Each structure stands twice: as C-alpha cells, then as structure tokens.
C-alpha cells in the first residue's frame, strides 16, 4: 500500500484543491475539482479508498440513500469509527471525487476508518470499479426517474452490474420485488455474503400503500420467507419497533413512516455485518435516536415561531409515503415542483386523499401539480412559480391552527427554500 500513496499525488491533489478554491470563489459547483484530479491521477480514488481499515460501503436504492447514509454514519461514529461520507446528493462520479479530494492529504491519505457513500444507480458500476467497495446496501427499487431510465427493469440490471463489483457482502431489502429476485440470483451465484432487512407481513399489510415497490414481472418472485437480520415489527408515526438478534428494540425515529423504519433496519443490518463482534445494538439505537434528519427529508425548520416541515416530492414513492405518514390532515400546505423533473405524469398515480387542499403551488412546473389537484377537484389557493415568493406568501398568511406549515418540495425547490429561510449550511458541501 505504501507505494500507492505518497509524493506522486501532491501535484494532482494540489491542482484539484486550486480548482476547488477557484470554483468556490466563482460560486460554482463542486464537481470540477474531481474532474481535474481524475485527469491527473486516475488511480487516486482507488488508492485513497484502499487504505481504509473498514473499507468502502455503498448505499444504493431509488429512495432513502441520503437518510440511510446519514443513519449508518451515525451508527459507525457511535462505535468510535472515523467516517468519511459524501454530502447528500453528491452521488455521481465527479461529486464523489471532489468530496474525497477535500478530505485527502497532499500525500494521498484520508483520516478515516470507513467510507460510507451514497451512490447514484446509473453510475454505480463505474464508481465501484474505482473504489472497490467491500459491502453495499440496496434499499429499494421504485418507479423512479422513468424519464432517465425508461423502465424499472433497467435499474434492476444496473443493480446487478453494481453487485458484480462488490467485494464481499451485500445487504438487501427482503420485501422489495426486484431486490428479492436479485437476492435469489446472488445466493445461487454464491460469491457474496447476502443478508436481508425487512418488515413483518403485518407491518407491510398495515402500511396504506406498502413500500410502493416497483413490480417485477420476471416471474422469479421470491416465494420463500427469508429471515431478516433487522426486521421492522412496528412503524407508527415516529415510533418504530425493530427486531434484532431475537430482541425487539423501541426506536424513536427522527422522522415518520415505514420508509424511515426500513432505512434504520438497513443501517443496523449493514453495521452489524461490517463491525462483526464490535457491533452493539444499544449504541446503534442510541445513534439513530440522536441523529438529525438529512436536510429536506422530514426536516423541521423554525421560522418566526412557526414550524415548517419539509417533505420530499421526488417520485411516486416519496410523495405517497410522506403523505401516508402525515399526522392528520395538514392545514397549511405548499407544493413546489422542479423544472429538472421531467415527465410529472406519475402524479396521477398518487393517492391524495390525505390532503383536503393546497394553499400555494410553486416551482417552474407547479402547473402540473395544480392540474393534478384540479382533476381531483381539490382546492389550491394560488400558483406562484417563484418559490421564495411562494414561501413568503405562506409566512405572511395567517398562522396555521396546527402551528405548522407542510411543504412538499422537489429537490431544487427545497434547496432554494432553505437558502431563502436562512439555512445556508448546504452552501459549502453540496455538489
């Protein structure tokens, strides 16, 4: 390993740092420094990653990557590990390279025990070939980004390709249609250690729309009931019960819903696999309970004595699950939809019965949300395409009886909203 690090990285890393500095000054994105380093020393990523005693972990899936990366990092830190992780959303090759660069010394060393990285499915195999992850967790395969991927089967093929690059272990959502099939294939192949997390059939049945898992038509559906390392036995609002090694643990979750509980079960399963005998479930529960939500994912902001809860509006599953686990009918609602979210036709598959009205609709494609509500015969107050004006309109309006505004925000609208409300902590890190 000593020959792979050292002086020959000084120049490329310095060049990357300079680029990083220059793009910061310009106020630009953080992906370019990664490009520069990659050009100058293409093996830098692999060599830096290979020094980590607990290796590299990939966190994959349609939804929940940022949340699970955050939870898993907290669990590992609670066990005394120094964790390197990529900023939420910086999950494509150059964003990851930039993040690694920022934490790497001029001689190509990183002050960490483990790298926990959320990874975009479309680039996962490429990144895996560079970073040689030992373990991976795949959270779910949902109907997501059809405009980009065409059909869910394509994403299943991507996950299969990524799994082929994983070194030793993979942790899968037992109750996901496509991932159940992938687990069967990987078990038959026998190269990887395959473990599962899941929810009990009762929890699955009591969820209003289950986990909104995409249909797998291949006919290879897993029929055998596999055992799960960590299993959600109850998910009710913020309270979950998770069974691990024969004992049920109460977990007060940072946010609500079956999807959040499943992400926690995934983090427990992966941490137990990676830490082996060092894993302490009490520490893991404590870490999860004291973790803050990732920004914009069930995050509650406090503005002028009012609460604003931000829920993601990314695809059918995120909208539906966030609706399903609302506490009652929200009395003050904003929806904002991105220009970069192509093809909002999936909105028609959503069950909006949890809403009785929306106050303000925003974002460049807000009209598509308005049309969905209009066809449903639900009231929406106004359409204000500029999200900062829309947010201000909500704040200028009467204080909601509940004291809480509920914002359903697409990614860019969420970033703009947080910035507008003075939450500028993302400016440095996000790609």
């Amino acid at each position, binding site marked *: 390993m000593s020959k792979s690090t050292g002086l020959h990285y000084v120049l490329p890393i310095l060049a990357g740092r300079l680029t990083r500095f220059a793009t910061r000054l310009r106020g630009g994105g953080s992906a370019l420094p990664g490009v520069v380093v990659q050009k100058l020393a293409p093996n830098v990523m692999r060599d830096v990653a290979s020094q980590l005693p607990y290796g590299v972990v990939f966190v994959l899936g349609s939804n929940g990557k940022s949340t699970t990366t955050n939870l898993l990092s907290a669990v590992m830190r609670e066990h005394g590990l120094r964790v390197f992780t990529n900023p939420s959303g910086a999950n494509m090759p150059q964003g990851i390279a930039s993040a690694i660069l920022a934490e790497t010394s001029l001689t190509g060393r990183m002050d960490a025990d483990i790298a926990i990285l959320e990874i975009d499915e479309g680039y996962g195999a490429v990144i895996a070939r560079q970073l040689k992850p030992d373990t991976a967790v795949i959270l779910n395969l949902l109907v997501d980004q059809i405009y980009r991927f*065409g059909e*869910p089967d394509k994403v299943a093929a991507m996950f299969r390709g990524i799994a082929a690059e994983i070194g030793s272990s993979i942790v899968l959502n037992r109750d996901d249609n496509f991932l159940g099939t992938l687990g069967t294939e990987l078990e038959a192949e026998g190269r990887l250690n395959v473990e599962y997390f899941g929810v009990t059939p009762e929890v699955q049945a009591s969820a209003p729309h289950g986990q909104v898992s995409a249909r797998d038509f291949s006919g290879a559906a897993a029929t055998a009931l596999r055992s799960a390392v960590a299993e959600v036995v109850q998910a009710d609002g913020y309270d979950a019960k998770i069974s691990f090694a024969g004992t049920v643990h109460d977990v007060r979750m940072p946010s609500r819903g079956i999807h959040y509980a499943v992400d926690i079960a995934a983090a427990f399963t992966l941490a137990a696999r990676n830490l082996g005998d060092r894993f302490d479930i009490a520490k893991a529960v404590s870490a999860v309970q004291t973790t803050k939500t990732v920004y914009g994912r069930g995050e509650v902001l406090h503005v002028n004595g009012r609460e604003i809860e931000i829920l993601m509006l990314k695809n059918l599953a995120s909208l539906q699950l966030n609706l399903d686990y609302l506490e009652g009918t929200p009395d003050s609602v904003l929806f904002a939809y991105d220009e970069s979210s192509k*093809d909002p036709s999936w909105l028609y598959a959503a069950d909006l019965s949890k809403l009785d009205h929306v106050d303000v609709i925003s974002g460049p494609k807000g009209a598509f949300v308005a049309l969905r509500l209009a066809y449903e015969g639900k009231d929406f107050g106004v359409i204000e395409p500029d999200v900062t004006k829309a947010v201000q309109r909500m704040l200028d309006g009467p204080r909601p009886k509940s004291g809480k505004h509920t914002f359903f925000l697409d990614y860019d609208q969420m970033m703009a909203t947080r910035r507008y409300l003075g939450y500028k902590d993302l400016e440095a890190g996000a790609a």
Partner: protein
Amino acid sequence: MSVRVLELYPADLSLNGDVGNRTALVRRMRLAGIAVEELSYSAGDELPETADIVLIGTGSSSAVRSIAVDVDRIAPTLRAWSEAGVVIVGAGAGFHLLSTSIRLSATEVIPGAGVFAGSVDNSSKRIITEAFALDSDFGLIIGTENHTSVYTGRPDQKALGRVRNGFGNGDGTDGVRVHNSIGTHCHGPFLVLNPIVTDALITIAAERAGLSYQPGPAHADLDQVVDLARNILIAKLPS
C-alpha cells in the same frame, strides 16, 4: 343511463400515471352531469358484457410479455368492440398490445390484439421526448413519449397525427385511428393534457350510450389549468 369506462390491466400497465386518463374522462363527464361506471379488468378476469370507453396504458417490456397471453385471449372481444364503435384508447405499451404483433427482441415476437393493423418493433433504441407534439385533426396534441419502438402501420389506416416534435411511429407520424379507437405514443397522461381529444371521445361514447355531453363553465375553469401545463411543454417546442 351511464357511460362505462373500462381500464384494462391497471396494475400492470401503469408506468406513467396512466390512471390519469380515466381520471380525466370521469371528471369531465361527471362535471357535465353524466353518470359514469368505472370498471377494471385484470388478467384472468371475465370482461364485462359491454363498455363505452376502454383504456389500456403504458408499461415495461416485461409487463407486456407477462400479460401477452391474456391479451391474446380477449383479443376477439376487443376487435369486435372496436369494429362496433366502442372508444378504445391505447398509450405506449397499451397501443402496442392493440397492434397485430410486437417484436421484443431479435428472437421474440408476441401477438397483439389486432385492433390496429400495424406491427411494432419494440427492440429499437430508447426515444424520450419531453415535449412530444403532434398536429392532428383534433388540433395540437402534446405530452411526452418514452419508448423503444417503431410502429409500421397499414396504408389504409390513418395515423393519429403528424409529429411536430419527437419520433412517434418512426415515419413522421404517430399513432393510429381506426373506427373510434386510438393508439398513440403520447402520455402525460394523454387525455389529461389533451382535453380536445378527451371531449371528442366523450361525445362519441355518450352519443352511443344515448346521452349528450355538454361541457360547461367548470370545464372551462379546468381547461385554464390544463393550458398552464400545456404551455410549459409548448414553450419547449423548437420554433
């Protein structure tokens, strides 16, 4: 008296919010005071005796493959309904399943229902057009296309329209119109974004059911919102 709307394979062919086509039809009819009966059909079910409007939506190749045998089973009824003037709307995979045959790969061809005389090669490269636009007898049709197919129609069957932006059937046209049946690659959903088509089809179906469809002020309000959404896509069309 009511208008019966039948959605075929809603659990299988629903990749792009296809239930929205039903939502649009039902909402517009109810706003005009027309009673609607909503029915769903899944593989293995018995088809109802009759239907006034039949919908079949978009889906993955694997979904098409999995229901092909069942489509073949109900094909004679679907052809008879179409010939009798029942309104049938197929989008994407649903359109393909109503054609005569679908090539899924170099070695795999499955039969379609034969409502439309053309055939589909579904093994081409993926085409995605955010603002997919057709000039049709109805007017400007707009939505999104996302498929891997070339549709080769028969000269005696009219296309739905000429492609203004996008790929469509692959020959400058998109879709097909036979009797009161329509196939198209347009989704968004199709009948949500194109009320000019939706109203024309409701008018036909209502008349066949002995009813009259008169859109009113509530429809005009709805269409103002439709136009806001349509205009976002229209603004993306090359000038």
